[in-house]
């Protein structure tokens, strides 16, 4: 082992992450578990920043920590805790399995030659100029491996259909209509969030940002409107345009993918000239769809249809 090169920051970050995870999963009380989970998300975002992955840090902070945390908080009252613990043999078996996995992983990872490891970074940076964007992560996401992202958007659609099917009527949500301060914050924050989303979207092509992070910011705006109970905010009613907007991301992505290949090029092969605009077009559509999808997941069910009266 070539001496202790890791800095104090790494040590603290690593131990903090592990400690928080152990605390999150170990505590009995559910409320505390959720709080720890959100903080854990924050620390992991910090970890990403340390590992020079700002895009991922943005996504982790917004989607991983904040939104998943909100989702869990929203659903907690409906999931009664059952704090019995598993019988002894299963616990022993699980512990053995976990330790075994850790030992194997540690051993394998230590064998990897961390210095000169073959990786796809070379080809990515080499072909970056042709990809139409300068931010390598967006280039990989929306050009080199655009097919992955297309299928991933389909995963989001599966989640939406699944959630709407599982609870035809969204669980009740008591909006804070009457609170002056909250409404004041709302009037200030919602436009700010929309601008932030647009900024992140535009930023994505040459700096950390992009469709997912912008979508998360936009979904925060929608959630604010939802929590404030603004009557005709998106998601209050199951209108046709809501459903259209939800699938817009996937539809636009496919349209571009096939449109491009109509003139004999391969699937998803953007003509070098319009590559940047096409990517921006796709990202814009994705941002709206992702924001609405995250909002639907938060709602946990299908909003009442236009004519239905119930909340």
């Amino acid at each position, binding site marked *: 082992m070539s001496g202790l090169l890791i800095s104090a920051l790494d040590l603290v970050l690593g131990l903090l992450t592990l400690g928080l995870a152990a605390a999150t999963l170990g505590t009995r009380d559910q409320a505390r578990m959720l709080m720890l989970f959100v903080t854990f998300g924050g620390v992991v975002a910090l970890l990403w920043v340390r590992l020079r992955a700002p895009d991922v840090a943005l996504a982790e902070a917004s989607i991983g920590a904040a939104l998943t945390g909100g989702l869990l908080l929203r659903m907690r009252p409906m999931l009664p805790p059952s704090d019995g613990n598993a019988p002894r043999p299963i616990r022993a078996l699980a512990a053995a399995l976990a330790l075994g996995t850790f030992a*194997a*992983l540690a*051993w*394998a*990872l230590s*064998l*990897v030659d961390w210095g000169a*490891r*073959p*990786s*796809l970074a070379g*080809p*990515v940076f080499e*072909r970056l100029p042709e990809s139409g964007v300068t931010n390598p992560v967006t280039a990989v996401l929306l*050009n*080199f*491996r*655009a*097919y*992955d992202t*297309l*299928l*991933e958007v*389909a*995963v989001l*659609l*599966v*989640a*939406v*259909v*699944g959630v*709407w*099917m*599982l609870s*035809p009527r969204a669980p009740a949500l008591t909006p804070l209509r009457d609170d002056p301060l909250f409404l004041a914050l709302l009037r200030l924050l919602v436009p700010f969030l929309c601008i932030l989303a647009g900024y992140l979207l535009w930023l994505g092509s040459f700096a950390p940002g992009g469709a997912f992070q912008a979508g998360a910011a936009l979904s925060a705006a929608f959630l604010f409107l939802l929590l404030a109970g603004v009557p005709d905010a998106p998601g209050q009613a199951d209108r*046709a345009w809501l*459903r*259209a907007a*939800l*699938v817009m991301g*996937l*539809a636009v992505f*496919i349209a571009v*993918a*096939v449109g491009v*290949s*109509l003139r*004999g*090029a*391969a*699937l*998803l*092969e*953007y003509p070098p000239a319009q590559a940047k605009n096409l990517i921006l077009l796709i990202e814009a559509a994705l941002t709206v769809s992702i924001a609405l999808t995250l909002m639907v997941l938060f709602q946990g069910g299908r909003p009442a249809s236009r004519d239905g009266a119930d909340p």
Partner: protein
Amino acid sequence: MSDALPAPDWAVLTVLLPLLGAALAFVAERQADRIGFAATTGVALSSVMLLLQVAGGAPYQQSIGGWAVPLGIALKADGLAALMLAMTGLVGLGVAAQALRTMASELPPARQGTAAPWAFWPLWLLLLGGLNALYLSADQFNLYVTLEIVSLAAVGLTALSGKPEAFTAAMRYLLVGFLASLLYLLGVALLYARYGVLDIGTAQSLLRPEPVAQLAMTVMLAGLALKSALFPLHFWLPPAHGNAAASASALLSALVVKASVYLVLRLWFDLFGPTGLATEAAGLLLGLLGAGAILWGSLQAVLAERLKLLVAYSTVAQVGYLFLALPLDGTERGLAWQGVAMLALAHAFAKSAMFLCCQIVQDRLGHDRIRALTSSAKLPRSTQLTLALAAISLIGLPPSGGFVGKWLLLQASLEGGFTLWTAVIMAGTLLSATAMFRVLVRFFAAQPDDPVEAEAPPPGITARLIDLVPFALAAVAILLGLVATWPLMVLQVGAGG
């Protein structure tokens, strides 16, 4: 739209058409069934066209976005992939036709077998798109994303029936599926760490039997074994398939389980085999687990109380057969490979036919307890015949496709000197025969018809026609045997590039 092109790219159509169809069916909810069925027919057609194209000897190959393989993602379809695609399309078409009637809005929810019939079509099309993408993809991470689409859509379909047990089963299926996918992804990460490559084709030349690669293989195969419910890890499958709505369980058993098993085959024979990672010991272990699956699954099928549980356990057994082939000849396109492919194809058709019959049995008799089955007039004769034909193929009696698959497996194990395997196959055949005949025998049990007046089967030619859909699926399972030389020839078309 793209058909006016010179040569429409059928493979891309099989993936994008269902996704687009799902989006459309989700938006236009009231016409969901019409859009859904139209999209399914389109996909079935394109997958058959792709099969014909590949059968002409030219394996399909395209790198997406024009980026060369290590950087971009490659779509590949060799003989096996094309056959699986065509099978998915055709079985899907059959199930969709059946669903067209059962999910029809005018039927009371109890008869529809689900509280949210509109959800079936988007979920089914997304599942279809995921499956087709999985069969075509030659990139490890892309396979992870397709696996995710397939399992999440499958969880949705399981929970579609609205019964409490279905929710618990779907929940367990989701957690198990997610753990399995992450295990698979861990393997991909390790391989990327060591070799810095995601594409299977390029990895083939890089991988060497080193500790990191061996650990990656173990973890990946463990994840996929968990997802395809290999014997000790099969606990989640029977409740999930048993309690799902009938057309959903047909899709789950016939198509979804095939995806992860296909992946195991693809990795074992294309990636781990040639690079020497697929050692004797690993193959033997998986083979033994497969043998356990055959015996345990068939035994449980014999003891099952309800028809759908019996059919679900027979799926567990069939998966066992597919894993049995791993330790056999390591050569690609060898006997074991052909046997497994034939078994997978025949099983898909027969199993989907059987589950659709469960739907008709549940519909007409109101229950599916095996002991209470009778030869009452309420059960149309075509259903009894379909169950018989499907049973023949599942047991593997000649001349069905199942028999050809088992015959090839038998030959491979005899040549490989695995006499234990032949004994297991024989025992499995006998056990599954007992299980299946336990059901067929009931159709000769004359019970005085219970006074409840027989529900008149829905009139109209379409209803009678749709009753014949399961019969057509079962017939294909049998005909696969008689016309076996053609699919076996297509299997020889190696993966290009």
